[in-house]
């Protein structure tokens, strides 16, 4: 008997033990040391779904909802689940042919794979939705209707103010890495949608769902213990008057320019028109990309908000501020007079003036006398109080900055421009230190030359004059439902009074401005029953060195006592300020003050609305673009036909083959026509739409 082998039982036990230790060690590694498996397991089994809250609604000053939410319905398809489909019937309902049906299914498979849902048709029309809803049961699980909230601009106006939503791109994600955005999310890209994104978006909810091995949802994770509910976005209440805004947009149609109207007491913007504009609803629906690219290549640049971004020479509207400054500095009094023989000869080369005569402050403003203001500024710059031009110009700059020019005001929509106020540094750079004097920049005195302001700055100027020495930063949002949690509105609550200027000075300037309407250059703005103070402006400008028709300006506030509206109207290349801008401003003031345009003024309104003042260079560009597009379209058609005739390219990718088989099966079932080969259409090799830069006129 082999008792001698008993010792081997120990070896056997040792083998057992060692094997178990190895397995335990591996378990220790998997379960205790390595943390990645827990994470992998969660990724495997828990789906984090973001629950999107409804965005906040935007109301105007009369509590009319101007930006609302609405539902749109998309018809979705899961190609792999299409079974026993009556293709012809579906195509009938959707008003498409079977080739189109095929194309959409193939596209869906290429984009999202056959087993994932793709959009078959986005934003169904009301009729299609009703028809589909009734017949959904026929189409099985392969098709379903998904509702999707979109933004609705109830008045189709104020596009550039309200802004639009767009899918976030990688750039946006990088900038807002703490905002919890994921690719595929929508966020406000311009206008109030962008600047109040934090408020409007609300708080996203998160739902954790359990998935099985086929990614099928099995139910909430831990019975929803970790879920957070979505909180709807807060509503915004604007100072905007949507009726006034619409009126402004109508008046500005077929013109290039801007209107900004401000309530001087609050700084709240009543209307801000940037023309040409567009219907904001174009950028919400299914065709948003198409519309966007159309707007993007339009030579009139409808996507640009001229009212805040563009800078223009202010022209004679600038003179009002010069008067305030000169009076406050004491270089002139209201009695000071200058005579004009038709031009300003103070610097050798004459600077033209409208009418000759002897002017005091009031008549100088009323008649917009260039000579008067050239003399005034000459006195300001050559003021003996200051040792040199550098310091006197710096002093002048101080006033200008105080008036809110030359820097961003801080309006609550993005892309605000700064405008330009020339400083000693500007001229030192251009001419060299000591090589310039008043005569170098005398045209600044009449709002030409190096000075540029944005329309919103100009309107704010009027609010400043109306308030006799203070303003509040122009803004749209009056209040936020549920309070201003992010302190976005704080800066709009304080009034800014840059320097202490006595009311008498303002009264003197107001006198002149009232004269402008009563008997001066701005009689076109007159509104019966309302005392308006205003100032016309006509700014010379040129494009690519070619002199263009003057910009037409009018800035005003009304009524003179206890002013309720400060307004600025600008029409690019329209001509004399009194001809176009002044009547438009008058109509706007009337609309705001009286809520309606008097019957006898309707013809004027008609005339203003119908006037086409699109600058000739833009009209040419539009024509060029249109004809280019036609050529492009024609040649594309030609190439397509050529390709159709000569070669057929079969698409081989796996997904497409899958699609083929699915559709083939469908069509066999339905005894449809045999499957045609898909021919791939190449992109045209023609020059794409060139983005035409209209270099803004600076003279």
């Amino acid at each position: 008997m082999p008792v001698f082998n008993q010792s081997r039982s120990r070896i056997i036990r040792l083998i057992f033990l060692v094997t178990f230790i190895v397995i335990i060690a591996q378990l220790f590694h998997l379960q205790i040391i390595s943390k990645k498996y827990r994470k992998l397991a969660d990724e495997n089994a828990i789906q984090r779904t973001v629950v999107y809250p409804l965005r906040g609604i935007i109301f105007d000053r009369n509590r009319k909802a101007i930006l609302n939410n609405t539902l749109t319905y998309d018809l979705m398809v899961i190609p792999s689940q299409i079974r026993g489909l009556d293709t012809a019937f579906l195509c009938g309902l959707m008003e498409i042919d079977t080739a189109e049906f095929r194309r959409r299914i193939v596209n869906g498979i290429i984009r999202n794979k056959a087993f994932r849902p793709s959009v078959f048709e986005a934003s169904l029309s009301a009729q299609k939705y009703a028809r589909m809803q009734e017949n959904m049961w026929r189409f099985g699980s392969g098709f379903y209707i998904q509702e999707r909230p979109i933004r609705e601009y109830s008045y189709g106006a104020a596009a550039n103010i309200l802004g639009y939503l767009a899918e976030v791109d990688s750039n946006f994600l990088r900038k807002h890495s703490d905002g919890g955005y994921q690719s595929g999310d929508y966020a406000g890209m311009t206008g109030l949608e962008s600047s109040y994104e934090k408020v409007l978006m609300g708080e996203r909810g998160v739902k954790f769902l359990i998935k099985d091995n086929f990614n099928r949802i099995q139910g909430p994770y831990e019975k929803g213990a970790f879920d957070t509910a979505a909180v709807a976005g807060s509503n915004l209440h604007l100072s905007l008057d949507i009726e006034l805004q619409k009126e402004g947009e109508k008046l500005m149609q077929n013109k290039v320019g801007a209107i900004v109207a401000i309530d001087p007491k609050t700084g709240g913007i009543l209307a801000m028109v940037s023309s040409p504009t567009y219907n904001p609803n174009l950028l919400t629906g299914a065709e948003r990309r198409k519309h966007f690219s159309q707007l993007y290549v339009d030579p009139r640049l409808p996507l640009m908000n001229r009212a805040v971004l563009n800078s223009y020479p202010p022209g004679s509207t600038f003179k009002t501020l010069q008067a305030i400054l000169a009076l406050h500095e004491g270089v002139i009094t209201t009695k000071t007079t200058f005579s004009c023989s038709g031009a300003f000869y103070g610097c050798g080369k004459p600077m033209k003036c409208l009418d000759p005569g002897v002017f005091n402050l009031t008549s100088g403003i009323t008649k917009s006398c260039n000579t008067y203001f050239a003399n005034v500024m000459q006195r300001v710059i050559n003021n003996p109080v200051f040792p040199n031009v550098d310091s006197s110009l710096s002093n002048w700059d101080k006033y200008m900055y105080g008036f809110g020019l030359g820097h961003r005001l801080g309006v609550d929509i993005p892309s605000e421009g700064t405008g330009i106020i020339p400083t000693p540094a500007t001229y030192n750079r251009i001419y060299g230190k000591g090589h310039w004097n008043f005569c170098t920049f005398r045209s600044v005195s009449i709002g030409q030359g190096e000075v540029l302001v944005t329309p919103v700055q100009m309107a704010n100027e009027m609010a400043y004059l109306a308030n006799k020495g203070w303003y509040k930063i122009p803004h749209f949002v009056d209040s936020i439902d549920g309070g201003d949690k992010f302190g976005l509105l704080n800066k709009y609550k304080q009034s800014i009074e840059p320097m202490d200027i006595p009311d008498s000075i303002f009264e003197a300037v107001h006198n002149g401005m009232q004269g402008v309407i009563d008997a001066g250059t701005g009689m076109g703005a007159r509104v019966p029953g309302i005392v308006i103070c205003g100032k016309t402006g006509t700014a010379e400008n040129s494009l690519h060195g070619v002199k263009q028709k003057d910009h037409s300006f009018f800035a005003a506030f009304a009524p003179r006592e206890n002013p309720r509206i400060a307004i600025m109207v600008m029409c690019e290349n329209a001509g004399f300020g009194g001809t176009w801008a002044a009547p438009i401003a008058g109509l706007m003031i009337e609309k705001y003050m009286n809520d309606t345009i008097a019957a006898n003024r309707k013809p004027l309104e008609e005339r203003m609305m119908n006037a086409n003042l699109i600058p000739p260079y833009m009209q040419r560009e539009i024509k060029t673009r249109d004809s280019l597009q036609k050529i492009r379209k024609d040649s594309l058609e030609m190439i397509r036909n050529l390709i159709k005739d000569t070669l057929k390219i079969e698409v081989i990718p796996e997904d497409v083959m899958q699609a083929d088989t699915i559709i083939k099966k469908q069509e066999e079932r339905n005894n449809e026509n045999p499957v045609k080969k898909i021919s791939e259409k190449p992109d045209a090799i023609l020059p794409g739409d060139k983005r035409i830069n209209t270099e803004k006129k600076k003279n």
Partner: protein
Amino acid sequence: MTQRNPEISKGIDWSLVWLYLALVIIGIMAIFAATYKESDPLVQSFLQFKTDYSKQFYYFLIATVLAFFVLLTDSKFFTATANLWYVAGIFVLLLVFPFHSRIKGTESIIRLGGFQFQPAEFCKICVALALAKFISRPETDFSTIRSQLIAAAIALFPALLSILQRETGLALVYFSFFLVMFREGLPPVVLIVGFAIAALVVATIVIEPNILAISLTVIALLTIYFLRRTLKRNRGILLTIILLWFVCVGIQRFAVPFVFKHVLQKYQVERIYSLFGKDNPYHDAGETVSADTKQKANQSNYNVKQSKIAIGSGQLWGKGLLKGTQTRYDFVPEQRTDFIFCTIGEGFGFAGSAVLLGIYLILLFRIVTIAERQRSVFSRCYAYGVAGVFFFHIAINLAMTVGLAPVIGIPLPFISYGGTSLLTFTVMLFILIRLDADRHMVLR
């Protein structure tokens, strides 16, 4: 039962019975955790023969009855009928060839009415008995090579049949009977050579063939260099070294590729290579890997990955019964059967897994202890046979689920879902308990 029938319970090793019950209960619980759906009524679904856990529960009841019958049997019966059982076992294995039904790619399952029956499982008992019988024969002198060869043939003949049925996993189990032979005096050289060949095969897979050949040559030359004095006196050693070198390179260059190309199934080769993170180099140039092969290999890769994720996500204390996100929602395929350990790893973490391994280790050690206290060679050999089979199943199954061994579809004793395997292991264990209870009746 114990009161009414004192004779049966006399001498029974209760510790084995308790370990057995503990494991079976853990098993039913794990299957329950893996397959229970929240909507099921608990008691009802346990009693109806519909869900897997209720089926396993009924298998357990059947197993209990069988165990009872085994305990009622006279221990001499097993000794006497061992060879008969072996013949019966082989016969049933052969029956598979005409009557098999293709289930999950194997050809080793017989359908009887609604039940599937896997003879290869059952055959393990027969081999354990027959081997014990052969070695315990008075006329067998196990120190002779002849009897060793016969013993090996007894153990490996069913393995050959299993390979023919494409059940490589089950075939490998029969190699566990070498444990019995080792205990009974098989020269350790056999085991050492076995390990050496295994190491060489692994090296062949892991290391690039030419580099391996060069390193083997270098090792041989270095050995010759260091032993040059001894070699001068004894030419035989030199010859041995050269012969060894020749055999090693031969295995590496020819034998392993031959086995991988012509003996093993393609998916098995893929599995072995994927364990080491390599691509299978043995499909012929120009021949594309068939989709089936690829899918099978991918599937097992996926299994191991998901199994590791499930186990790893359990961490120290686990997620709790029915809380496992991986095993509850079918991420691990075959989780009721071969990958049942995932459920325990995920649900009860490292602590729970260690406890289970502990129970198994105690069971194995207890069986070895029992084996050593037997007076009859038959009982001892049988006990070692049981220990070997259990050990092989446990070790390979666990190593496979934690990613240490290639995926070989063999169940975890007493825990994996499956009637045949539960009944087989139960009967195996209870025959041992019966034999042990009667150990005093046997004269030396």
